[in-house]
């Protein structure tokens, strides 16, 4: 028999087994989720959740699919948060500080309270990556923010109204497209394929019998 704990979903009390995640506990209680549930594996950021343990002053945040229930947990989900997402043409912007000033000027209003970092469900150093973005250091911003799941909790806690995940998204795209080194072997392979270099080889495979293909497959050489 599972050990049971009391939790409070939007203030209402439910008794649930203590080995469940918050998400499964909501379902155990009878909720058919539509909002606040996506990949159920910690990648999509749909299930941002705020909670407080009774008697504890600290307000905590988490992903509901990655966090176990505790006794006397008061839970409110945050299935949507109004982030600012600026639109831009990736082909026609430059990886320079100017672009952040233009699209996300509010990052310069950061007061350094660090509430974003404290609230990150992925334990990222959010304030630091915003500092990199302010300086136009998009490579560092991209690296520091890489594991972001865009749940939006940081922005919900920000007194300056910054949409941190969107700032980081822009930095990563600038880094991936303009700053990271180009792959020459990739570009030459694309050109070779366009030139028809492999057409004959592929054509030959298209015409072979299954027996011939098995022979080739079972005796192919495998790189160490």
């Amino acid at each position: 028999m599972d050990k049971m704990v009391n939790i409070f979903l939007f203030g209402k009390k439910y008794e649930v087994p203590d080995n469940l995640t918050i998400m499964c506990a909501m379902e155990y209680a009878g909720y058919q989720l539509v909002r606040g549930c996506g990949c159920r594996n910690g990648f999509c950021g749909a299930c941002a959740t705020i909670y407080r343990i009774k008697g504890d002053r600290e307000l905590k945040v988490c992903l509901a699919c990655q966090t176990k229930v505790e006794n006397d947990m008061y839970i409110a989900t945050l299935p949507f948060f109004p982030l600012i997402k600026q639109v831009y043409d990736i082909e026609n912007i430059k990886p320079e500080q100017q672009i952040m000033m233009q699209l996300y000027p509010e990052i310069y209003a950061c007061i350094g309270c660090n509430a974003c970092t404290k609230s990150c469900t992925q334990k990222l150093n959010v304030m630091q990556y915003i500092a990199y973005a302010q300086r136009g250091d998009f490579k560092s911003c991209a690296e520091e923010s890489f594991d972001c799941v865009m749940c939006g909790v940081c922005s919900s806690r920000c007194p300056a109204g910054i949409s941190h995940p969107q700032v980081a998204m822009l930095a990563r795209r600038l880094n991936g497209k303009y700053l990271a080194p180009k792959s020459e072997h990739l570009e030459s392979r694309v050109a070779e394929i366009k030139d028809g270099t492999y057409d004959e080889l592929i054509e030959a495979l298209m015409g072979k019998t299954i027996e011939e293909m098995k022979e080739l497959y079972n005796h192919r050489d495998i790189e160490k």
Partner: protein
Amino acid sequence: MYSAEFQKSLHEVEAAREANIAYEPARMSAEDKERLLEAYHPDYKKTEFEKLQFGPNKGDVVPRELCEILQAHSRITADQIDLNDVRYDVDVLIIGGGGAGASAAIEADRAGASTMIVTKLRIGDANTMMAEGGIQAADKPNDSPAIHFLDAFGGGHFAAKRELLAKLVCDAPEAIQWLNELGVEFDKTSDGTMITTHGGGTSRKRMHAAKDYSGAEIMRTLRDEVLNRGINVVDFTAAIELILDDKGNAAGAVLMNMETKELMVARAKTVIIATGGAGRMHYQGFPTSNHYGATADGLVLGYRVGAKLLYADTLQYHPTGAAYPSQIFGALVTEKVRSLGAKLVNSEGRVFMHPLETRDVAAASIIRECSDRDKGIDTGNGKAVWLDTPMIERIGGEGTIERRIPAMMRMFANYGIDIRKEPILVYPTLHYQNGGLDINADGMTPNVENLFVAGEAVGGIHGRNRLMGNSLLDIIVFGRNAGKNAAAKSRNIEMGMLTLDHIAAFDAEREKAGVKTSAVSPRLLPDYTNRHERT
């Protein structure tokens, strides 16, 4: 930290680690693999399959749960819908907001077509977001599209439609380039060389990755691009029935708001089904690595209007689903863990197979170890085997895990397990729908004009098993392909009168076949209320 009941076996794993790192297990012969699959792979368990009694694939066997929803009733009847009351009128309607749908939308929009995505959850709530290990492309000097073709064709048991597979491998390098130019980050060395690894069944190291967030990095970038382009994304809205015109061609869909249940009509010159997989159908009671909405909706929508399925009887069970702790039961442990050197080890500390066999073979081998051979570890949720992750740090040096597979490290750390120091417990999990709707190389179904399919909802690209890294590739290649071709096709279409007559026709077929069912479909979401065994 593992509790006392695991300690004895854990000690054996630790004691054997050095020897196990040095040990290079042989790969199985073709005959060994065949025997193993027949005896242990879930696809070969005949009692779990059922014959379709009517419809385009009458006589074919499919998983029982899929058979039920394919033969089920529509959620609506034709007289409930006023087809003259058109809420959305577009050139290209894309059903599904994952990697395939987003890629299709970007290309359709780029081609100048009015494009709309409808998705029952949010854009990006999709298996693409959860793909961890990487994406294949033959772009290294020692590799070629032909070698890639051979690996995938053999790995898929020589059953792939060759014209689809040829497109997949030949368009692969360009797909990587397209993603990179959209700003997707890839793991590269300082001179720009892609860092590539093996996957199960590859003969060259061609797995490109963005740490172990490969799919997430691709999906969030595609989503950002869709939003930048101002493409209409109608979220929390499901397509519940396709609409045809009086010539029998695809011409739109009936939509349902998931929250208010309002029904709406979308008219479209072309329709792309990009609804993804079926893990949440929990075939044979397996847990799944799939996202919440993976319920085979597109297969149902297509089947009901006459589109044929190909290989719908084959599913992929990813060999390494998390088996412990229960909170992450069934969650994906990326194959990259094995690419980086971790081996599969049984309860006695023995390496029982080559870690990079294809997924179906690896899954069957683990099931054998945990059943007839009785060398599994009891987790309280069934048996499991060890995946010895500390080997990675020994082989690649300290810090390799944090650098290359941070998501895995985080997932287990949430439950107090440090995968750098302790191995993890794994068992196969329902991961991928190998089969799906049949398409031609242009992405359109052969039997319903103007109906395109892309991504996991397609059958035939991979044959009867898929290699790691070929599905992130297929959603990009065939997503883009469908988007371009649907947009081009939409320019020359004279639509006839809209109709939902196929619903009654399908009901009549069911009646004639003598099938009695109260089921309705598509299912849209699984029902986990008042139960607690799913993660």
